[in-house]
């Protein structure tokens, strides 16, 4: 079943209550054409399981990797993604937009 905003944040809570390391990623700013609106969430556990989305699937992989780091290190960090060919070593958005994503650990 497709997950709704309700399921996403509830899942983050239940993962944490189960003793798992959890991070929440939130789209905080978008420029140009961005696939998911500001306020969209992706939640990630320490094993890399995730629910929700911050883009149309373009940068979720990178966000999950960063989130697993944040779960390890604690705190929060801001990620920024632009078009795919902007930086060859990094994933990006093929739609040409830019997004800023806040990743924070649930502590």
């Amino acid at each position, binding site marked *: 079943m497709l997950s709704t905003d309700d399921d996403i944040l509830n899942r983050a809570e239940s993962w*944490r209550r189960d003793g798992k390391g959890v991070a929440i990623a939130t789209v905080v700013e978008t420029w140009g054409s961005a696939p998911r609106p500001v306020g969209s969430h992706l939640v990630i556990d320490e094993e890399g399981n995730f629910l929700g989305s911050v883009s149309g699937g373009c940068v979720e992989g990178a966000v999950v990797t960063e989130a697993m780091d944040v779960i390890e290190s604690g705190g929060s960090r801001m990620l920024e993604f632009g078009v795919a060919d902007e930086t060859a070593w990094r994933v990006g958005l093929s739609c040409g937009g830019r997004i800023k994503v806040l990743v*924070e650990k649930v502590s």
Partner: protein
Amino acid sequence: MDLSLLSAMNAERTARRATVLVTNPSTGAQRLVKEADVGADPLADLLRDRLRTGRSGMAETPEGELFLTVQVPPVRILVTGAVHISQALAPMAKILGFDVIVVDPRTAFATPERFPDVALHAEWPDVVIPTLGIDRYTAFVALTHDPKIDDPGLRMALASDCFYVGALGSRKTHGKRVERLAEAGFTPEQIGRIKAPIGLNIGAISPAEIALSILGEITAALRLDPATGAKRTAA
């Protein structure tokens, strides 16, 4: 984010109350402001404005640059009529992230077998709807054709600030409905809120197609600005 904040946010959402999570991205400081407590917050005006539009986003404030996560209650579709269309509408609405409640006093219709995993009330609408409440995040859909069942719900919906009211029925059925509501004291403007014939005109024939057209119309009511017809900025 602190687990206690996350769990308070989830609890408010379940209780259908709006919240704003205020995050300072540079310091990581966060606080959760419940709808009822907005007035006492130093950012009261800004938060009230965000709650009204339902829009999350960055904001320049005296406290610095903050990110506001606005959480409004999930859209709820209140349906009278445990009919064939409702059977299709309930699972489709769930995928869209809408909560569905079906009310029908006819116990042969309102059975858990016909409506697995749906909040179902085999009671009269005038008894049960007041206990459920119709808020501005609610869409009311009348699907029985039976005035005894649909009309009480319609009267409550028209008296509320719900964002959508739709009623199934031919133009003739609707004409009689309009007369009854006018007799009950509703103004033409209030009655004009009712979408009838219900649903977007997509040539729907089957119950599932009609459910799709209703859900399309509800989504449009949610996402389009009625004055301009343009898309509202995302919530």
